């Protein structure tokens, strides 16, 4: 869903770029009609939801970020104090750094594995059953994913450590060790999202004209050569889009970290930015401060979204 939403954003870019959709010209031909009363009735639930849970809170969020607010007494205006404090808060910067560390591990491994899987499926099979099975980890709550792997990677009884012991490699406290915890969480989420990402890339590959591969085969090109000279260049726009969409999702890592922190606790080594905001807001009740941090994160994600839209425009002209 995180990805679907982000894709929505990109499709919106198309819409906004072309306000004169096909329906507009057809509409003019028909008898002029005004459905305004019916239209507003149709829109009541959505407009109410939008105003109460998107518009109003967006304004409130900005206002809270300028206040000192502990949920009990009313917010007290403090100007830009929260932002000044953020800039000097080593914990905030550390959280950003940890998040970037996680994102790099997660995205690089996830994209590579997904690309490999998608390419193999594309050249070997159209099996729906296989795709469905690869999708399973994505359908499962992140909380469950975290639990499964905390158990599989348990230092004493975990299956993976049994394997390592059998191979004489010694055991690792994957979630407990500050050095291992973040890479472990990164790889766990790679496990959870690789199938989903692979299916998106696979869908992109299906749009590559098959005759390209046929003529390349006649010319004697091997599969590796075809992948480099046909699949990768043709997939580039889709690849770029999936990459940015995954990046936006990856920056919002929370569930796995929250469960790991509750269970085995590697402390600040896994305190990502979402978790930092969560702690500030709901453990220390620094609502104003947390809102300021959330706004900074929103800006980062906003920049990524703009990049995504630019990529989308580029990809459209490419595929035309």
């Amino acid at each position: 869903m995180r990805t679907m939403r982000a894709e929505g954003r990109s499709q919106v870019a198309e819409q906004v770029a072309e306000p004169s959709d096909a329906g507009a010209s057809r509409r003019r031909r028909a008898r002029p009609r005004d459905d305004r009363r019916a239209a507003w009735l149709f829109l009541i639930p959505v407009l109410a939801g939008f105003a109460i849970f998107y518009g109003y809170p967006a304004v409130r969020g900005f206002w809270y970020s300028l206040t000192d607010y502990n949920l009990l007494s009313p917010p007290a205006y403090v100007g830009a104090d929260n932002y000044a404090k953020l800039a000097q808060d080593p914990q905030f910067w550390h959280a950003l750094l940890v998040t970037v560390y996680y994102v790099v591990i997660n995205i690089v491994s996830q994209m590579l594995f997904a690309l490999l899987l998608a390419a193999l499926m594309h050249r070997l099979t159209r099996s729906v059953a296989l795709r469905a099975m690869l999708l399973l980890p994505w359908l499962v709550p992140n909380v469950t994913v975290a639990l499964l792997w905390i158990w599989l990677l348990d230092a004493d009884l975990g299956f993976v450590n049994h394997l390592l012991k059998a191979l004489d490699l010694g055991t690792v406290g994957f979630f407990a060790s500050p050095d291992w915890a973040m890479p472990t969480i990164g790889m766990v989420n790679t496990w959870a999202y690789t199938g989903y990402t692979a299916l998106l890339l696979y869908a992109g590959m299906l749009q590559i004209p098959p005759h390209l591969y046929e003529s390349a085969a006649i010319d004697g090109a091997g599969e590796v050569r075809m992948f480099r000279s046909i699949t990768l260049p043709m997939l580039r726009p889709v690849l770029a889009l999936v990459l940015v969409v995954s990046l936006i999702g990856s920056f919002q890592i929370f569930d796995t970290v929250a469960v790991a922190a509750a269970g085995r606790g590697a402390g600040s080594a896994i305190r990502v930015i979402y978790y930092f905001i969560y702690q500030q807001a709901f453990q220390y009740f620094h609502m104003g401060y947390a809102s300021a941090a959330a706004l900074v994160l929103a800006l980062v994600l906003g920049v990524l979204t703009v990049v995504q839209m630019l990529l989308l425009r580029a990809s459209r002209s490419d595929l035309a």
Partner: protein
Amino acid sequence: MRRIGTLSAWAVLAVALVLTLFPFYWMVRTALTPAADLYADSGALFPSHPTMVNFLRILGLTTQEETRAAGGSGARIDFARYLLNSVVYSGLIATLQTFFCAMAGYAFARLRFPGRQFVFGVVIAALMVPPIFTLLPNFVLVKNLDLINTFLGMVAPTILMTPFAVFFLRQFFLSLPRDVEEAARLDGNGPWGVFWRVSLPMSRGPLITIGLTTTVWAWKDYLWPLLVGREEQTRVLTVALGVFLQQSPNTRPDWTGLMAGSTLSVLPVLLLLIFLGRRLVQSLNFSGIK
């Protein structure tokens, strides 16, 4: 040579499939293991003494002594209730959100009224707002309305709309042929009649697609239910699993119970995958990068 290449490619796919599915096998294997065997069986592929007791005890179907004997802490857990809560939570959100967004999508696609483009643009702009930014104020709002630990508070922010669903369904309604709707109008149907009797029935596919993805999203949701629905009566599976882990002793977590609970959180989506897998898989092409 070519044969070897194909074979090794299949081998890589097979490894990927095993890596994908094995953790789920291990989860079920552990859930079927008596707590007393946890240590002895920790490397075994099959439980030496398979049992359903872990499921029974987390569903609250055993007595306290039986629960303790089976490795439970004796703390009250009632996964039957959490499972039901999760089903209600995702079911409510998926059905109502899809319906309301279909109404709005239809209005934006088909009905004529001044300001249509502008209002649509404003609603869609909400796609740019990351969830974390509205999360804190929404929590304050729900708290001030005294809706903490109520289903209403839990579903409120998502039951009426998400910008993506509005956008997605509007796109679909734009692509529907107009003739049928025009004919229904000439037969004397008002806008609601056309929508309800003609357009909605023609939209089963996209409605199921968006309903499915919303169901999955709500099923996986953790942070919002954690903040707003922590208490027994509204606690969903994801929150319950987190609480269960926290309550079980750090040195010797109740893994057989935790894996039984995890299995409960996987079963419904597994059923979804078995019965609607084709549609789910194809929806990734449909809504995807095109």
